């Protein structure tokens, strides 16, 4: 018998990959997700280094050069590679600085909505039934309002600005985290390892944050990626409606709103900010899809 058990250890030609490595290898297998990751990394670098990268101050008006087309079109100059807007501001500089605002919006909204949502979700998952019911009803109420409409109304109360738009969006996105966290907590809470931790005398806080929470993180991480892109889209939509960042802030949605009247005369002032939003959001969503596939073993190829 002892002979058999020693031979078992010897027969290991290929090793089973570790958890993080496993995650990375299945993430890397998804080409779209890797491209998304690179684009997102570039976006973050631009957001950080916008001051250095941008050739001009984004609000500086070059009065002699209004509505200059991009360099590859007739009349374009290398002085303004992506052209200028109706006030003679350099499009490239404005777009680069816009990345900073979008990144800022995404980060703040995700951090605020996720931390609040996870806390409330954990409480709801562990709370007695009546408290759980009350919390979930409140979330139902928030979810009954279309997110953009509620954000719009909230901004109308708080006054139009980028900060208020972020607060409103974070508030509107929060219930998704609450529902997700609560659902995973309820799912995990009945499992044996939680029961044994409880029997071993773990306190409620320890049970919530150390025993259960790490095992619920998979779907929450995916949700974080998805709400990052939702936040950018909603902030741009609010800016477009005039309820987000105010001119002359070079926020992409606000830039689009300013450019609306030139829609048929100067395509670049309308097209470029939209492309910037689309590429960023697309990259994040690609990454989110990759994360979901890598974290959810059910969808893996088996």
């Amino acid at each position: 018998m002892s002979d058999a058990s020693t031979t078992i250890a010897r027969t290991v030609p290929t090793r089973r990959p570790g958890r993080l490595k496993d995650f990375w290898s299945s993430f890397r297998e998804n080409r779209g997700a890797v491209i998304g990751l690179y684009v997102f990394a570039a976006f973050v670098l631009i957001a950080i280094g916008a001051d250095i990268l941008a050739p001009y101050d984004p609000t500086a008006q070059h009065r002699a050069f209004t509505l200059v087309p991009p360099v590859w079109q007739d009349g374009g100059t290398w002085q303004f590679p992506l052209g200028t807007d109706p006030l003679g501001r350099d499009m490239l500089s404005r777009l680069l600085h816009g990345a900073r605002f979008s990144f800022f919006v995404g980060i703040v909204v995700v951090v605020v909505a996720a931390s609040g949502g996870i806390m409330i979700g954990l409480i709801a998952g562990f709370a007695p039934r009546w408290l759980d019911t009350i919390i979930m009803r409140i979330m139902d109420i928030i979810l009954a309002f279309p997110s953009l409409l509620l954000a719009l109304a909230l901004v109308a109360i708080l006054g139009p600005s980028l900060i208020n738009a972020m607060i409103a969006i974070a508030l509107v996105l929060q219930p998704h985290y609450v529902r997700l966290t609560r659902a995973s907590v309820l799912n995990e809470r009945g499992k044996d390892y939680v029961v044994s931790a409880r029997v071993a005398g773990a306190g409620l806080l320890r049970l919530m944050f150390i025993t259960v929470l790490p095992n619920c993180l998979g779907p929450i991480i995916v949700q974080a990626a998805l709400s990052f892109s939702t936040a950018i889209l909603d902030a741009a939509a609010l800016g477009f409606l005039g309820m987000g960042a105010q001119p002359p802030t070079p926020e992409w949605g606000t830039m689009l709103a300013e450019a609306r009247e030139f829609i048929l005369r100067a395509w670049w002032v309308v097209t470029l900010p939209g492309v910037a939003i689309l590429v960023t959001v697309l990259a994040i969503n690609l990454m989110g899809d990759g994360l979901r596939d890598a974290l959810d073993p059910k969808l893996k190829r088996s």
Partner: protein
Amino acid sequence: MSLLDIRNLSVDFATSTGTFRAVDSVDLSVDAGDLHAIVGESGSGKSVSMLAAMGLLPWTATITADTLAFDGRDLRDLSPRARRRIIGKDMSMIFQEPMSSLNPCFTVGFQIKEALRQHLDLDRKQRHARAIELFEMVGIPAPEKRLSAFPHQLSGGMNQRVMIAMAIACKPRLLIADEPTTALDVTIQAQILDLLTGLQAETGMALILITHDMGVVAETARRVSVQYAGQKVEEQEVASLFSDPHHPYTAALLAALPERATERRLPTIPGVVPGQHDRPEGCLFSPRCKFADERCRTVPPPVQPPAIGLARCHYPLNVPEEADAI
């Protein structure tokens, strides 16, 4: 000529960490009216080889074989349409999990009549009558009422009876039963087995019974294949298999039967079936075999002649003297 003839069948699965060989050069031939059992632990590839014959493997699987023939026609040469005319009619299969093997969105009556409509030329009324008849055959009480039930309203045993009724609906010549009793209560298990062997005797169809339970094999089968880690390690008539197992794995399986235990403690086979990442180099059973030596661990074993039960072993057990002389 045998009804089902499989020569050198291998099945590979593409996984995220490389290919995994679930079935490794398996031979099997089943004659009309035969009752053949395939025994092995979970993960030994016994279901996969039969799913390959039925053409039911997922898209990640690659099938290679010298022969994969039913009734003399190689299944791989048939058009999908011609193959669908055989599958479900002449050759049908029931599965391990009766609860999840029936579509939850349709009544069991709809599902059984669907099989009838697919292969037989019956009108609506005849199909209904035949469905009731089939339900009676498999021992479902109040068949008329049960036809309009959804699978989740029936018990596991009842659902397995529905599955059997569905599988024999078109009078198949071969029925493959993939662990038909594993998911059921012990008391129901015997009933379902009796039902299957009874139907087999009654209709004269061939039956392949996939199981991990040696006890079931002893009671029902005529011939037995033992599979281990995707390979067939031994094949014999049931009586001689039980009296003279040639492969150490078979011997160990038999020794683990409570009825045959000689000591106070039931002997076990240490270790588990090797998976994708820990396949040994030589004999696949060598890490768990108490007779294994250096040769077993480095050189893949040969297949012994039929007299020694086609055992895939360097040192087969219970070798008859005349066979030894060859």
